[in-house]
């Protein structure tokens, strides 16, 4: 039987013979991760990838996402895959168990991701974004923000995204014009339009917590004046209950060359002037915050590309 997605022998070679990942179990932080555990994690990931993610890869590509009246539906087959993925607690593999993570070494998570992404990278894009957005909350959130959002994001009950790009601000992110005006309380009124937002709107989860880059009124031009905000799709009250829809609308999804299983959304924030966000981190420190996450994000994109190549071979 031919190896699928990734050659297990090669994965094991790198983890154990080349990098000796087991050495990390000498340290308290990774004490559970001896060879047996590492191998078990990789086997479980491989099983899930081959049994549930790979079989629906083609169907999801053909079905794609659909947009109607501001609502986006993802491929039907993703719901089942997502349920399994959440059950296995795969979203926050390396993160603090206190918040729903598994505390794994990075290299082990990368091995699992080799299988997941090689089997169904459009599906994984949803999860990578939930995790990335959660990580921003973990690093820069106040205790309150962490309490309201973090565990739900790391366990996949709620999703995430990254709202940076605008029609005139892609590589030149400093040119963005989405605005934030301070309200009387701790919130900001956010208005603007974002494009190319992966998972910006979807029916995989009941709420989406969007990290949004915006310029506070009066802040400098360019990247120096950008701040980071948390803008939930449905407002979350202090007691954790849902409030109203947060005046954030998906205005359409792109027809693309690939990754059809992931909706690439255009988002309109504050069309009725009712979109609220809370500051994540410090004012005008939005770009620094993104840079902290950038290494991990870029490493994961490398992993996505590599996984396609690995599956090709």
């Amino acid at each position, binding site marked *: 039987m*031919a*190896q699928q997605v*990734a050659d297990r*022998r*090669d*994965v094991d*070679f*790198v*983890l154990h*013979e*080349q*990098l000796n*990942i087991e050495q*990390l179990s000498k*340290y308290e*932080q*990774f004490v559970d991760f001896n060879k047996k555990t590492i191998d078990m994690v990789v086997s479980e990931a491989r099983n899930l990838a081959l049994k549930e993610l790979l079989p629906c*890869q*083609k169907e999801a*590509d*053909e079905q794609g996402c659909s947009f109607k009246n501001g609502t986006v539906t993802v491929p039907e087959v993703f719901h089942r895959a997502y349920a399994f993925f959440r059950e296995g607690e795969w979203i926050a593999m390396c993160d603090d168990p206190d918040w729903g993570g598994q505390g794994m*070494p*990075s*290299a*082990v*998570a*990368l*091995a699992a991701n*080799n299988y997941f992404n090689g089997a169904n*990278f*459009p599906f994984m894009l949803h999860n990578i974004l939930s995790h990335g957005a959660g990580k921003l909350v973990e690093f820069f959130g106040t205790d309150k923000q962490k309490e309201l959002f973090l565990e739900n994001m790391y366990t996949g009950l709620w999703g995430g995204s990254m709202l940076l790009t605008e029609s005139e601000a892609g*590589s030149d992110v400093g040119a963005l014009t989405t605005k934030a005006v301070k309200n009387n309380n701790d919130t900001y009124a956010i208005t603007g339009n974002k494009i*190319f937002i*992966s998972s910006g709107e979807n029916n995989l989860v009941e709420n989406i917590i969007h990290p949004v880059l915006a310029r506070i009124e009066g802040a400098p031009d360019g990247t120096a004046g950008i701040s980071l905000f948390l803008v939930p799709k449905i407002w979350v009250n202090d007691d954790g209950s849902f409030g109203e829809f947060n005046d954030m609308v998906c205005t359409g999804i792109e027809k*693309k*060359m*690939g*990754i059809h299983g992931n909706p690439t959304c255009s988002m309109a924030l504050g069309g009725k002037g009712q979109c609220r966000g809370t500051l994540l981190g410090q004012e005008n420190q939005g770009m620094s915050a993104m840079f902290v996450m*950038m*290494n991990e*994000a*870029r*490493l994961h*994109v*490398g*992993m*996505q*590309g*590599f996984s*396609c*190549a*690995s*599956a*090709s*071979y």
Partner: protein
Amino acid sequence: MNYARTRIQGKHLLSSAKDATSVPIIQHPDIRRILLTMKSYSEGMRSILFYIGLLEDKVKISEDDADRTLYQGLIDVLIPVAKGYITDRAFEMCSHGVQVFGGYGFTKEYPQEQLLRDCKITQIYEGTNGIQAMDLLGRKRSLNKGQSFKDLLDEIRKVIDTAKGIISFKEVALNLEKTVIKLAEVTQNLGETVKSEKIMTGFANAHPFLDVTGDTVMAWMILWRAVLATKKLNENHTKKDIEFYEGQLKSAQFFINTVLPVSRGKMDMILSNDSSVVDISEAAFGGK
């Protein structure tokens, strides 16, 4: 791989009999070249990415500030390679995949064309690969006053030194050593170019610089694997393991002997500071 092993087309190049049977395409030299390309790049990429993962964990558990700085610096320098270089090569590998499938590869009947389509976005989002190249040239090359880039080359030299001690690998190790020396020269030269009035030409070479840095990092990983495989082959192993380790040796021989001469050629190109990219007028691009 499975397809190449089972798909029968064409007679073996060396068979002279008129009624010779057709063979699986894995027996044809051009296909073998494509497959070994895909094999060696997949393996090298895996090593680079998992290695960065290990560095991240080492940062977490280090109690020594100097160690943490070293590891974090290596991560920072390697990230443009992890994203920019790897996704560029990955897209090419997916394209090779279509090629191996032939006509069927172009149809939706096989999953390969989806992999190629899906892979393209990885070169674009999270910072286009042009941006990754600028990051390597403009920021990471001079990170910690250039020390982190030097640390990377030092790590590579450690493996070269070990490999030089293994007779069967001496030539291959020397080949990589020549490449590292040239890369250091290119790094120095580009650093000066971007500080001079030729800065635009310097940045025109940002992507080629990413390419050759990536090639060198890949060769390091692949040679490291081959050195390990050589040690293992001297011990007692199953037939399957022996086949695996021999595959590691061949990947190394292939990559270092066929890719690095091209990389060094590219490095010569960078050193020549050709400015046609910068000098051509917008009108001369034509098409108006």
